[in-house]
């Protein structure tokens, strides 16, 4: 059984935590949403879509995790994390906009760990 390249999930963890750290710094400095945070969310979105594609390719190859329903749920929900956080955070014109983005970064990192638990072929 071959593995999904662990470099992408690892990159998502590092990127998610870095985004969360930067966003929390913006909250601490009383800054509102800016282009840097939106661009970072865009990068996170692309990385998540790449991973979804890789996992779907693995499923198409005939391999299955113990709980297919859970995995599919994660695959559908994952790309919405940066999107929804971006819209919800951009509507806020205070320091609490970046705080929402920080949650998205942390969630992306936690999702990678959970994905690995659901299907160990997805390396971290």
């Amino acid at each position, binding site marked *: 059984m071959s593995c999904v390249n662990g470099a992408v999930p690892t990159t998502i963890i590092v990127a998610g935590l870095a985004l969360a750290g930067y966003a929390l710094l913006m909250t601490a400095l009383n800054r509102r949403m800016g282009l840097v945070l939106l661009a970072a969310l865009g990068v996170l979105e692309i990385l998540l879509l790449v991973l979804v594609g890789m996992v779907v390719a693995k499923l198409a190859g005939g391999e299955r995790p113990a*709980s297919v329903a*859970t995995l599919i749920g994660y695959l559908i*929900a994952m790309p919405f994390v940066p999107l929804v956080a971006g819209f919800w955070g951009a509507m806020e014109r205070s*320091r*609490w906009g*970046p705080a929402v983005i920080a*949650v998205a970064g942390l969630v992306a990192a936690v999702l990678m760990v959970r994905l690995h638990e659901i299907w160990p072929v997805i390396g971290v």
Partner: protein
Amino acid sequence: MSEPAGSPEPGAARPDSTRTGPGRLLIAVYGLFALAATARAAVQIATKFDHAPVAYLLSAFAGVVYVLATITLAVGSPAARRIAVVSCSVELIGVIAIGTWSVADPATFPDATVWSGYGSGYGFVPLVLPVFGLLWLRRWARRTDSQRTIVTSAGRRGTE
């Protein structure tokens, strides 16, 4: 770089509803838990209900409470805030009661719920979230009370 958040006057930055300011963050986390708990419970009940019926039904109940809290916090009308206070209180009681139950009698919980171990599987966020929710709602209850006092005293002055 992000822009500085406007004027530093506290009055200017004051949130104008339960869904702005810190409420924005609160609703984001509540929405996340609403989705996670209901989706997880739905999968568990649909695929392996007999494995841990108590845990799965409690997960589903927790999911419903999170959905209710998310919606009522986002709506923010006085009636919605009252429902939100009930939801957050049920959550706080739930996480403490189920947390204690799961520690005392692990056999009933072969599979974890959001609330077992006081929410330890979710970084204890389920324990902290209702506390912040209730604090946020109390701030709004106070503000509305003081506004009502100002309005009624102004009205009384008008009739004199």
